[in-house]
């Protein structure tokens, strides 16, 4: 369970990234966070694994306040929160298997990992993860030889190999075309249901949010302005979150092709 209690985050330059956030994410939920560019979606999601640190309030992950974590505690928190990025963030010159095994780094001792002495279970876990996203035939390809969609699947396999309790995905489909976007969202959704991994996804396409989310959180200017199950969401809700009428480019489209 993740619980934001009166969380504020002010960046060093004075920008208020988060404003009085009070949100509780229950285990197993698939939550989509929507909002315009600059609304604070990334700041919200990156607070949970402490890539950014809120400046006040408390943020509980499994009933521990993570805002005080340092060093070892912090790394332990991060091993249980897997992250997926807009730009896939793979090591382009390394092969797919090595990239996926990197998901085990948090569970592996420094010496072991420097000499590539992964446990047999870890290697087979990495291979199984690649199979689950159907990219196992590319195992020895260099990451930069893959298409964007394939790279994002490798990064999903990396997160699976990490065996996290939570998955945080920051705009995972923003660089992909509509059919590939749906493929990636389908994998995330499937993993959420099969492995019971609580998943938070930042999106700015409202049709995708509606299609995949259990629950939608709307953000504007650092504040949560909507929070509710997808069944309560209408076009009007989005207009309120965005503070303007819905436009063509707020939609990804292509759902029927997936």
């Amino acid at each position, binding site marked *: 369970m993740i619980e934001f209690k009166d969380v504020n985050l002010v960046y060093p330059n004075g920008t208020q990234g988060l404003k009085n956030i009070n949100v509780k994410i229950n285990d197993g939920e698939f939550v989509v966070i929507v909002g315009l560019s600059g609304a604070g979606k990334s700041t919200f999601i990156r607070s949970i694994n402490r*890539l950014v640190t809120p400046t006040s309030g408390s943020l509980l992950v499994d009933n521990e306040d993570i805002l005080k974590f340092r060093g070892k505690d912090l*790394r332990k928190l*991060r091993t249980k929160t*897997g992250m997926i990025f807009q730009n896939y963030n*793979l090591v382009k010159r390394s092969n797919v298997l*090595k990239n996926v095994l990197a998901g085990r*780094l*948090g569970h592996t001792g420094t010496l072991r990992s420097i000499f590539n002495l992964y446990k047999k279970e870890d290697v087979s876990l990495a291979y199984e993860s690649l199979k689950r996203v159907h990219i196992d035939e590319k195992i020895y390809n260099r990451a930069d030889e893959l298409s964007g969609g394939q790279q994002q699947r490798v990064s999903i396999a*990396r997160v699976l190999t*990490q065996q996290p309790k939570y998955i945080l995905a920051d705009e995972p489909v923003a660089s992909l075309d509509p059919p590939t976007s749906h493929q990636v969202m389908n994998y995330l959704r499937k993993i959420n249901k099969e492995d019971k991994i609580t998943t938070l996804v930042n999106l700015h396409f409202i049709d995708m949010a509606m299609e995949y989310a259990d629950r939608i959180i709307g953000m504007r200017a650092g504040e949560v302005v909507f929070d509710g199950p997808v069944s309560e969401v209408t076009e009007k809700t989005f207009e309120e979150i965005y503070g303007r009428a819905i436009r063509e480019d707020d939609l990804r489209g292509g759902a029927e092709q997936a």
Partner: protein
Amino acid sequence: MTNPKNSIADKKTIPSIYPTKTKLQVTVIFFVILALYLFSMKKTTEDMVNGLDGALGNMFRVLAKFFPPNFEILKAIWNPMLETIQMAIIATTIAAIITIPLAILSARNVTTFKPLYYITRIFLNLLRTIPDVVLAVVFVGLFGIGIFPGILALIIFSLGILAKLISETIESVDMNPLEAMRASGANTLQMIWYALVPQIAPQFTSLVLYVFEINIRASVILGLVGAGGIGLTLNQQINFYNYPNAMTIIIVIFITVIIIEYISTKLREALL
């Protein structure tokens, strides 16, 4: 609402790529430098005894003494030549190893702790201000004539260059994979090893080879001040006015440097 983005097009002129101010600055700088060149050329010619013609004549007379080269000493200079190459290899290898932590500490994107970054930077800048010959003279004074002071001088000399070039390579890497690894709970060493090293390995090897080339040439020069190797032999021959022998040594150095540079260039091409 006004529309400022059309203001340039409205004037119906094609804007130049550089602003007028920049062009003016570049032109002024160009003429100042040109004037300096002409001035110093004139001064140098005036200062030479008997002017330029006298200097040229002198040069030919000295050069003539170097011919024909004495190839009988080839066997004897084989050893000092190898010594020079060994000096360069040992110094480059040691410098390459010591460079790694220094380059990481002086890369702004990895060393986010500012004081550490600045201290390393300043230290490396200081190293680079000392000419290699000065280093060699100092070490020869401390440890006596031989290859050991030469190797020390080369290590410090190449450290300055290598650490700077490699820290710049590190500063240009893609930080995204490092962030991904941090986000998955990896520690700093693991991040460096898994996300940074693969990105810089080709450039690293290439730069080390490049510095090796420089070290071969530098170690010849260092030999002249007593730091062992072929340079030392060359110096001795010149001191004894044994110019034909010196010429052979120069030819051997020339060929060795060319061969090593050729191999190194080919290797580097294959890497990048």
